[in-house]
């Protein structure tokens, strides 16, 4: 066995249960029971590390999954918000860009997450 990654709420430290997980090599997306999403990436050294996805961590999500296809180079994340909106983003973007911005792929515009 290599690693144990506990699921904890960052602020309160309470243990969280995992609702759903989605794999898309080398990424792993985990949805916890407080509707928060965490993304992990398997790095070259063999460690599975938490990725800072500030665009996602402050929002609640009903459902999330990753999508990878041989036709596209990018891995996509599909996220369902409680208001019923479907958000689609490049996973690499989500992990790098600043907070609250998620690119809506369908209409090719930037969409502010908080509105």
């Amino acid at each position, binding site marked *: 066995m290599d690693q*144990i990654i506990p*699921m904890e709420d960052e602020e309160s430290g309470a*243990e969280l*249960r995992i609702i759903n997980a989605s*794999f898309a*090599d080398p990424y792993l997306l985990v949805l916890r029971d407080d509707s928060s999403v965490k993304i*992990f990436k398997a790095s070259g*050294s063999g460690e*599975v590390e938490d990725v800072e996805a500030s665009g996602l961590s402050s929002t609640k999500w009903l459902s999330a999954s990753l999508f990878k296809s041989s036709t596209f180079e990018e891995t996509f994340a599909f996220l369902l918000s409680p208001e019923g909106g479907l958000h689609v983003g490049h996973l690499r973007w989500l992990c790098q860009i600043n907070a609250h911005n998620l690119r809506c792929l369908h209409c090719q515009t930037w969409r502010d997450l908080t509105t």
Partner: protein
Amino acid sequence: MQCYTEIAPPTAVSHAITLPFIAPKSNNLVVAKNSLLQIFELKSTLAQVPADGDAGVENAGALPDTEVVDVPLQRTENTAKLILVGEFPLAGTVISLARIKALHTKSKAEALLVAFRDAKLSLVEWDPETYNLHTVSIHYYENPDLPGITPWSTDLKDTYNFLSADPSSRCAALKFGVHNLAILPFRQRDLVEDEYDSDLDGPRDAKMGNTDGEDGEQAHKTPYSSSFVLPLTHLDPTLTHPVHLAFLHEYREPTFGIVASSKATAPSLLVERKDILTYTVFTLDLEQKASTTLLSVQGLPYDITRVVPLPLPIGGALLVGSNEIIHVDQAGKTNGVAANEFAKACTSFPLSDQSDLGIHLEGCAVELMSQDTGDILIVLNDGKLLTLTFTLDGRNVSGMTLQRVAADNGGHLLNVQASCISNLGRSRLFIGSEDGESVLLGWSSKSNQLGRKQSKAGVIGDEDMSLDEEEEDVDDLDDDLYNDTAATVKKISAAAAEPTAPGSYTFRVHDVLPSIAPIRDVVLHPDAAAQYPTTGEIMLSTGRGAAGAITTLNREVHLTNLAQTDLASARGLWAVHARKQAPTGVTADFGQDAEANMSSDADYDQYLVVCKVGTDGSENTVVYEVNGKELEETTKGDFEREEGSTLSVGVLALGTKVVQIMRGEVRTYDSGKS
């Protein structure tokens, strides 16, 4: 009015062509199944091939299509598979396909010109944004006022109509009606630039591509200029009965060779009309709509039905008949070979004698097989394979030899007539058939005669060797006669001046497109249970000749149960396909380590992780090892078995890490250590 439902799409392949269609560097096979157009691309996989007794390790190096594993008993070979990109039903029946290098296509790749029955042409391109075909233009020639169409001439649908495109995409010609030719010229990139320079002052800017000189046409939007109909009798009054024509390679202007006569040929009238066919080569001047005769060969046998243009290194054209094949080079020198005993009886044209072969060339498919040696593959009407090889004297053809491909070399792989054949490059050919299955054939050569690639380290052979090597740019060899002459001559003189030895080519089937055509008879077999009248099977008798078969059509997929194991109280199960970790020291940047992934000593573990619910509600996890069809419980692996329920199990990092998602935490394991 739609009063029918199609339950099985067309499967008989009528035409096939290779071109880069989806993207500029792609290699696509476009297959027309009469009214359905399918676009394929190729994907190479490694497949296990049982080695023959005599193809030992020492020979394997000479076979360019194989990647040899050290154990001589089992060979893995690069096998190409056809992957369907899209299929499109067409409004009409396809009679010809041609590839055109058109300007400003959406995909920046080449466009496809489709000719339909009833004299209609359609130029289509690939639209990468909608992932669909896009029609650029439609041209039709059913106008009764066209010159050459008289009230007593045969209907357009009853004449032999076909399309031929210039290999350099300067124009395309549709022969329709009794003797009409519709010429569709295509714009060339350098023509537009030259006009701009001479007409306008000032610097070139981004608008250059949009303006089109002084005539003010909106023609810059279309990749073609206006087409015109040319009755063949305007070129030469004796061309009243054309047989076939094709555009030739390696000419500065669009040039085509045409086999025609002034009277219809007939086997019954051989006494009077012997050898009346003439092969003439015309150069077209598209601006002036005029032509020049370059050469003319008289006295051709009555049974010549086709002109097959040949690219370098051989050049010229092949005239294919039922009893003989004649090669005419650019100077008009001819070499012929008689394939059976009727050739001598029906013609006095000088032919070399190979009538002991007794080959019937009716309905054969002819295609250039090898760009280096210029060898041609012929598929006969019973599916047997034949190669045609040339004897060169410097740059000139001095003889031709027909050779049967032996059954050991794959000569009997096909059992039906081919309707079309297309060279996909990298030693692969697609042979389509309307009577049976269509196959993707790969060939390999044992010939050591070509010196061209002998300088490559450790490699003997004449074809593309490795996966990494880029496909030969065929366009290089289509250069003008005035360019690259020196390089080409060197290539030819290094190429086999002697004909290729018989038995040097070996063929193998890589992939198959199944076919249920032609359907002769149908029997409905409803299910025995009366309350389900719409289920059951349809039995068909399909295929022709040696490909005849009985086929069953089912509405549902019928699964064959391979193995069954009871896993009591299982709540969830996941298959883990993990790979041993790369040894330390190897760069572990995950991404495109395709070679390591493909290497045959990559070790795979196969586990089945099952989460079971006990009678008291507690959950535990059991791991099974999969061996073929057997499941064996194993204690291998550090999976957390007791404490929690497993929600999901997956692999990361290209299969070297196994991740177990439990209710409260995520655990990762190295697959090698377990």
